[in-house]
């Protein structure tokens, strides 16, 4: 006897009718092709089914075991305001229950939304072409490096140590496939050491990879880095925070060949690190080498404007083992979320939000300086900066939690600086919260 499940519509009668149509006596007859020796004996050893109301209690209980506190933590994922309209629009099930838009006649909504997303990414980055999304900003960066290797037919990439540690870690994993070299460029305090970089970049360098603002919040001078890359014919790959591009010069205007990053700051919940949404933008000359889906505009027989997946000759389902990337599923729904968020913010809202971030971080930084905390950024920064503490960050974090705050990122494990904390201040933090946080911090370390 089987139990009834809300997602399984077959009644005993249905089952009987279908089996009889198939001239079979039992469901088991349909599995007669599975050798007996590989058949599972007994049930899967997983917990029993739970009715919805019981499951709700359990899931709420699990969610409650996670602390949602005011955050001064960023390091690649940020607590930003998400307009309510974003959640409502991506909850239209015509969007979220659809597959990749293979049938354009019944997927015009998704296709147009992605075409608009691509346009917004081009606008932010100052690039010519953007794809429909990547898994996240980190994997997008690794794909950009692989593109540069394939395009230039060179053997190494040079990545700044001021690029996110996870980006660099994933890049190392990815590079082990095609087996190209990943060299790290040294730091000069809080930014890439340009003198050292000049010596490191050579005729075998496919690309120079930097982050903008970098992992420490500082703003790299892309113009100078472009000169170093271009002198050796290397591409410039920039990983950029899309919110910061509301006030920072577009990387495309400063010579970037590929711009990648994560749209998370614009409309996507932190969600313990995912799903977020990588973006990938290039100059026109690299258009036919972009990984992933691209939506293009075209017309039907009557001349009506419509949208289709295009330039598919690049992709795995056509090229198979000749494809440059294996990406198939992407993060389309989150690309939609960020497009809705960017549309809500608009031209002025994006800039206003970016400026608020810079101002709040600036305020927090000055207040810490007044209280004699050394700040390690020598270059201008966006919404994050590094503070030197008199004791290990791990100790401070625990005391901050007791006081009701989530502190900054511990630079110990990745940079060997256990007393340095990377602090992020977004528009979500009020002046009162910032004051209270710093007062608490002072109390903990003094």
């Amino acid at each position, binding site marked *: 006897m089987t139990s009834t*499940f809300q997602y399984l519509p077959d009644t005993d009668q249905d089952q009987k009718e279908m089996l009889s149509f198939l001239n079979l006596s039992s469901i088991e007859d349909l599995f007669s*092709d599975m050798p007996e*020796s590989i058949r*599972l004996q007994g049930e899967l*050893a*997983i*917990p029993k*089914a*739970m009715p919805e109301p019981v499951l709700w209690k359990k899931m*709420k209980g*699990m969610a*409650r075991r996670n602390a949602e506190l005011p955050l001064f*933590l960023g390091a*690649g994922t940020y607590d930003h*305001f998400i307009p309510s309209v974003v959640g409502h629009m991506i*909850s*239209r*099930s*015509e969007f979220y*229950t*659809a*597959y*990749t838009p*293979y049938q354009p*006649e*019944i*997927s015009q*909504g*998704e296709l147009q939304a992605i075409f608009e997303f691509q346009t917004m990414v081009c*606008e932010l980055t100052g690039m010519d072409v953007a794809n429909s999304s990547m*898994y996240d900003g*980190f*994997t997008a960066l690794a794909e950009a490096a692989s593109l540069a290797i394939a395009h230039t037919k060179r053997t190494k990439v040079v990545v700044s140590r001021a690029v996110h540690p996870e980006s660099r*870690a*994933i890049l190392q994993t990815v590079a*082990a*496939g*095609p087996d190209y070299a990943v060299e790290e460029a040294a730091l000069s305090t809080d930014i890439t050491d340009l003198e050292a970089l000049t010596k490191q970049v050579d005729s075998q360098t496919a690309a120079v990879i930097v982050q903008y603002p970098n992992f420490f919040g500082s703003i790299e001078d*892309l113009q100078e880095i472009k000169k170093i890359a271009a002198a050796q014919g290397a591409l410039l790959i920039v990983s950029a925070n899309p919110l910061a591009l*509301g006030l920072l010069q*577009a990387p495309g205007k*400063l010579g970037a060949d590929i711009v990648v990053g994560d749209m998370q700051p614009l409309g996507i919940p*932190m*969600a313990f*690190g*995912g*799903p977020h949404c990588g973006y990938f933008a290039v100059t026109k000359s690299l258009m036919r080498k972009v990984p992933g889906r691209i939506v293009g*505009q075209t017309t039907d027989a009557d001349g*009506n404007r419509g949208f289709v997946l*295009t330039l598919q000759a690049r992709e*795995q389902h056509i090229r*198979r083992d000749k*494809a440059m990337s294996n990406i*198939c*599923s992407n993060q389309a729904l989150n690309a939609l979320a960020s497009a809705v968020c960017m549309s809500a913010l*608009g*031209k002025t*809202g994006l800039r206003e939000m970016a400026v608020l971030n810079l*101002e709040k971080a600036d305020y927090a930084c000055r207040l810490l300086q007044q209280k004699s905390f050394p700040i390690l950024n020598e270059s201008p920064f966006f919404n994050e900066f590094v503070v030197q503490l008199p004791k290990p960050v791990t100790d401070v974090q625990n005391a901050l939690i007791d006081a009701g705050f*989530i502190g900054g990122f511990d630079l110990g494990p990745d940079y060997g600086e256990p007393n340095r904390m990377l602090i992020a201040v977004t528009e979500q933090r009020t002046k009162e919260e910032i004051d209270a946080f710093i007062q608490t911090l002072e109390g903990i370390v003094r």
Partner: protein
Amino acid sequence: MNAYTDLIFEISRPGRTGCSLPERDVDAVNLSKKLPAHLIREEAPDLPEVSELQLVRHYTALSNKNHGVDNGFYPLGSCTMKYNPKINEDVAKLDGFSRIHPYQPEATVQGALALLHELQEDLAVITGMDAVTLQPSAGAQGEWTGLMMVKAYHQQRGEKRTKVLVPDSAHGTNPASATVAGFRTVTIPSTKNGLVDVEELKKHVDDDTAALMLTNPNTLGLFEKDILEIASVIHEAGGLLYYDGANANAILGKTTPGKMGFDIVHLNLHKTFTTPHGGGGPGAGPVGVKEKLIPFLPVPRIEKRNGRFVLNREEPLSIGRVKGYYGNFGILVRAYTYIRTMGPDGLRQVSESAVLHANYLRKKLEPYFVSPYEQVSKHEFVLSGSRQKKLGVRTLDMAKRLLDFGYHPPTIYFPLNVEECLMIEPTETESKETLDAFADVMIRIAREVEEDPETVLNAPHTTVIGRLDEVKAARKPVVRWERETVRL
């Protein structure tokens, strides 16, 4: 449907906004004093300026031009377009899951880590593997992760194996993943019965064989009955067996890849485990492995030590990180919720119903279309449009005609080894009435091909737009809106 055709940029008017931001409560900063002039943006990105209602109407209008599972039957083969339960969506949105930061101290995210740890354990049981990583964001990334572990495994044994075997019916991602992982691909032909040609396979297996990638049931919906022999051929040569879990909806609770002899498995949570496809993503592609491959799993690993859940970042033989943080957490929450909803009995019924539905629909359609294989189907089946092609109507035309009846067409022209292929996966969540109605429409279209082919050739007739010129889109790519572009 409506005639709304504007882009969001075209309804934009300077001065409108769709949001309200907090007022400045700290000192203003003079940007030109803080930043060098060439790094300050002088021209704002040209984002749309619309009111909130305009925004809502725009995206609502777009959604009305989109077909999802909630709109109607979606028998897209190999994609498992089953119902996406609503509780999954609501649970993933709980603040305690959606508003937590990935770098919060472990003590503040014990609920999230417990969920991930339990999910790892459940998926290990479901696949018959010894350990699972949840990091990969999609099936293709899972494949590549698995293949990087294959590479590390052989290297650790002092071997450099370069060859990955892939059947001709495999998903395109299989060979592409092999290439990205630095292997070369050798394609193994199928027999006329639609199964891996074991004799042909043996000819290609040698001490350079790193792995065989296999989907079972395969993309024709047929169970590879010789799987144990295939496994021993590969294993005897020192190779590994990789299971592409795209078709796992056929085997839940009936068998496991582990029992079939596989060493590595990826699952597509957005197929088998009901997380929505989102119009292309995000998905999740967890990877399970047998014990001998555990040292190579990506880091960080989620482990339970003394009753607490911790992130282990230190594993010397690990292939490293494959994805930011811990995977697509929000998707993992949905899959966990589903697995708890169904339990062992429910998951077994899922596969039983999925297989029953596929065979029922296949038999209903067999009198009207060429059905190339005799073996019982699993969760999906293929038909060939070769009979209709002789009458001048292609599978593409029949697929477009299906749109007129409110159905998403099956996967077409895949697998590549079936002429004019239609690949149909009805899933377990559809009712018998839906299957019967769809069969009636397919039969009607088969009749139209004979009696009124023009109706099929000119389809679709009822959609918001006709067939689009894809050649033009690729030859002269327009991939973004430009202000100066003349409106069409």
